């Protein structure tokens, strides 16, 4: 897994600054926390959503409702995947009706995960609006999907892979780009 030719494109400080900026942008765009909710896409989007919630709370003093979404059951590539993905479940313990729901994911690539997340979200109700936060937008979209808030735009080749590592799951904060050996 550990490729030798990987290059760090964001360190812990850069991730921290990007998330702080995104938190402010979300608040500015939505004019505060009224009707706002965050939903992190498993697995790293969940940690990013929690960090955004904490930052928003530090700025506005309000803890916005935050949920977890597992999109495995909505993916369009289940029978094509090499390994059977583990289903860990969705936890959205608030009504999304009439909310401004902000989806949070680590990397925006083909757009297929976001498509699945949108379908999954609609099964929970009818949000007033859905917005998208990603830490990295690496391009190469296969669907007409875009992010509303981007931590960093990262031009990549299709042969490269982008990995977001976060303290909560990987022990440290960094974003690396690597020439994929094999996919």
């Amino acid at each position, binding site marked *: 897994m550990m490729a030798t030719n990987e290059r760090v494109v964001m360190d812990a400080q850069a991730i921290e600054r990007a998330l702080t900026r995104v938190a402010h942008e979300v608040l500015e765009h939505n004019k505060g926390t009224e009707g706002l909710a965050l939903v992190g896409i498993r697995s790293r989007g969940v940690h990013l959503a929690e960090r955004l919630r904490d930052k928003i709370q530090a700025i506005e003093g309000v803890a916005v409702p935050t949920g977890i979404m*597992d999109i495995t059951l909505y993916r369009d590539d289940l029978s094509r*995947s090499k390994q*059977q993905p583990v289903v860990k479940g969705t936890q959205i313990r608030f009504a999304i009706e009439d909310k401004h729901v902000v989806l949070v994911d680590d990397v925006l690539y083909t757009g297929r995960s976001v498509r699945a997340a949108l379908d999954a979200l609609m099964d929970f109700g009818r949000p007033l609006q859905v917005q998208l936060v990603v830490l990295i937008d690496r391009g190469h979209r296969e669907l007409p999907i875009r992010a509303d808030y981007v931590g960093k735009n990262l031009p990549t080749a299709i042969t490269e892979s982008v990995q977001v590592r976060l303290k909560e799951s990987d022990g440290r904060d960094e974003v690396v780009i690597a020439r994929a050996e094999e996919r």
Partner: protein
Amino acid sequence: MPFTHRHMLGLEGISREELFYLLDTAKSFKEISERNIKKVPTLQGKTVVALFYEASTRTRTSFEIAAKRMSADFVSLSSSTSSVTKGETLLDTARNLAAMRPDAIVIRHFVSGAPHFLAARLECPIINAGDGAHEHPTQAILDLLTIRERKGRLSGLTVAIIGDILHSRVARSNVFALNALGASVRFVGPPTLLAPELRAWGDVTHDLHEGVRDADVIMMLRIQLERQGKNFFPTVDEYSRYFCLTERAVALAKPDVIIMHPGPLNRGVEIASDVADGPYSVIMDQVTNGIAVRMAVLYLLINRSREAELETETHAQTAAEVEAATPRLRRRAG
């Protein structure tokens, strides 16, 4: 370790890791049944055929709801309303169904090993929904899920299995799984309803009170009245005098004991009504969990990864291997 088997035939020989994987997957499916819209698109365009040679309401409904909540199409056949009554053999019926290209066949049959027989001959994934007195794997998995939810663990627990163990496929599947997970098992029943080889799997007692003493889990089995032609006990009254689970017996178990029953209940025969409906009973949890377990099994078998497919092709789980795993005892239950 993921679950990579092509079929779900039984729990004999299953590993601890595979069981935990099944339980974790099932647990994550529970939330879908609590939604307002109880449906995910995962198995859209897939077809599940249920072939039931024995009466069933719970299991078949459970499989049907599970399949439909995953967006699969579900076709159900029972032997009484199909060409089985015209004398068609099991293999012919199954071959014809397989030719209609289903993505899984769920089968309940009164002959032990019937699902294995089909698994060795058909390409399609086979799910055993109960074969004779052999196994009923999804029932045992839902039992384990229910125990783990209530107790937070499975290893180190004392589980008393009470009743008609001789005829019980539920007991057999549970015993394999409980042993794999490090729970200790006690079998309780009259000598005529216990098999001698049980001692290899747990303690055996003929005294209900001794059996339930300090138990964490009491697992009741249904007295299979339809299989009592051979006089395994003198009368139903006498059986219930000795083995009916009453409040008095429950009081001997651990204070936080849970009481399970796979259904259907014979109230007043193996379990007293006030116990079945009482605070220790988790019988309805079992039914709810059954849906999640069957969703998980359908998901794992129908959406097998390409890696697992390749593996099966290369060092194949060949027909001969499946045959070898087929229970030698082809006893017709009852």
